[in-house]
């Protein structure tokens, strides 16, 4: 094939959804030309590891998502430090911030999400303020902290708390505030959240829950409750917003995220989207949601890539799922919590399974998380519970509860 006949693939973004998309394209087309537009000036890295980097549990080398020769091996050109600013769907081109345009035959938007910075009075008077999303955020934060820094983190969600864990031991004090009355409120109920909070507090993290900053004056935060907090370094972790504007401005369909089908196709021809910028059906409850988690980013990316290159991948069983740990206490959650609850608890563990219409639809596990994937698969596959030994399974996640036929298939053949 001559160069002119080669398919031109363009990927916007260079995170894990983009990496999946590259690998998906190459699963079906080994010759087409792939161009990656990468706002960040780094090869794809493991975004969730930025807190582990601060903690010293990984380093810049080990947190690379793929080997150093990844883009070469995959035959990709990466435009580092470039931002896609506009799509022309009629001409099938992408315009970049330097004015150049790139033609595409197939396009994947893998633009992720951006931290939401709330408009708080006096925020501009705070000298050292950070968001916690990128490697560059992390390196800048690391440059600023001192062993005696007083750190204030706004947001007790996953990102704020991971930041707190990463900083613990490297700064003088850490205070986390959140308007919600509990930590990790999007994935944990009050009791499970309390267990996690205790572990964080036992490790020196201080909380101000049900309270947030009303205004700033330099190094002082005036809280809604009336008290004040003096700090040296501020981290804003109130939430993230999917980067949807490119597609929205091109008249594509967007709700909270870019709408995609089970092939990751958007409503616009030849335009796909994957990862944190999208909204997909959560099969545990049937609603369309933004599932901002890494496994989905990779799987959606791979599916999009495969389809762009004429392959047949399908991704139609997304569910929310999280594995989170703080200071050695692990929690896992999956699916949705609307159903009849089965509960087991000990002094330091909690298991809650949610069952509806003969299906496991969700769970929360704190402290004891071994083999949780067996539960996750039941949710993802919407397995009818009366086809296996659920009385055994709800107590212990074990393949011994599968049917003999399933066991033969799984343990006696290639899967």
């Amino acid at each position, binding site marked *: 094939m001559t160069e002119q006949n080669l398919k031109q693939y363009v990927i916007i973004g260079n995170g894990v959804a983009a990496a999946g998309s590259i690998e998906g394209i190459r699963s079906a087309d080994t010759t087409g030309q792939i161009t990656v537009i990468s706002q960040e000036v780094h090869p794809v890295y493991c975004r969730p590891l930025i807190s582990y980097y601060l903690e010293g549990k990984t380093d810049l080398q080990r947190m690379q998502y793929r080997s150093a020769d990844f883009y070469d091996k995959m035959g990709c050109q990466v435009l580092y430090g470039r931002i896609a600013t506009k799509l022309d769907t009629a001409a099938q081109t992408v315009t970049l911030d330097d004015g150049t345009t790139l033609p595409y035959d197939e396009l994947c938007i893998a633009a992720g999400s951006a931290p939401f910075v709330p408009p708080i009075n006096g925020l501009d008077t705070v000298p050292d303020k950070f968001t916690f999303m990128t490697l560059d955020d992390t390196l800048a934060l690391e440059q600023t902290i001192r062993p005696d820094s007083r750190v204030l983190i706004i947001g007790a969600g996953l990102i704020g708390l991971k930041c707190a864990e990463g900083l613990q031991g490297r700064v003088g004090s850490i205070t986390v505030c959140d308007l919600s009355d509990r930590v990790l409120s999007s994935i944990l109920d009050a009791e499970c959240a309390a267990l996690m909070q205790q572990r964080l507090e036992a490790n020196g993290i201080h909380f101000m829950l049900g309270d947030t900053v009303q205004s700033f004056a330099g190094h002082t935060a005036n809280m809604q409750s009336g008290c004040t907090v003096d700090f040296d370094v501020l981290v804003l972790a109130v939430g993230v917003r999917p980067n949807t504007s490119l597609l929205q401005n091109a008249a594509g369909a967007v709700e909270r995220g870019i709408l995609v089908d089970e092939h990751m196709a958007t409503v616009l021809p030849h335009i796909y989207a994957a990862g944190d910028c999208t909204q997909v059906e959560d099969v545990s409850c049937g609603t369309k949601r933004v599932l901002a988690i890494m*496994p989905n980013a990779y799987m959606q990316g791979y599916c999009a890539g495969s389809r762009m290159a004429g392959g047949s991948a399908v991704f139609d069983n997304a569910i929310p799922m999280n594995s989170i740990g703080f200071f050695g206490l692990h929690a896992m959650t999956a699916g949705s919590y609307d159903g009849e609850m089965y509960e087991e608890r000990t002094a330091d563990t909690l298991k809650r399974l949610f069952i509806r219409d003969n299906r496991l639809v969700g769970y929360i596990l704190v402290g004891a998380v071994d083999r949780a994937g067996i539960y996750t698969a039941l949710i993802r596959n919407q397995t009818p519970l009366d086809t296996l030994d659920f009385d055994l399974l709800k107590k212990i996640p074990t393949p011994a509860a599968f049917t003999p036929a399933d*066991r033969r298939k799984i343990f006696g053949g290639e*899967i």
Partner: protein
Amino acid sequence: MKRVYVNEKWCIGCHLCEYNCAFANSGQADMVKALKGRDIFPRIRVEESGNINFAVSCRHCTDPICAKSCISGAISVKDGAVCIDRDKCVGCLTCVLVCPYGALSQGEHGAVQKCELCLQNTCGEPACVKGCPNRAIVYEER
């Protein structure tokens, strides 16, 4: 590719595979030194319910969800075998969250461990299979 397969009806639940696994991956030359009086961390596990027993280890799936989900880029497929780079692993347990068979577990030092078919240790072929008294697990092409 050769994998470890289970013959459920021959398994007597003796747990020898667990000891042989832990020993093969201990890096020690002496089994007593490696295992006696210690908590062991085998990568294979005998499941028991009523009168059934069988040993579960990584299935080396053709399309492994653990590798696709790993947030550290630590799990990859090498010549069909699903391998974990324990140096890259930060022990977040996302793989444990997604494996439908419960085949990965937290190891002694925080990083996750899984069956790598003894291709990464000095044994060279699965120690669990070699030591099974009953051919309840076999290492073969199917």
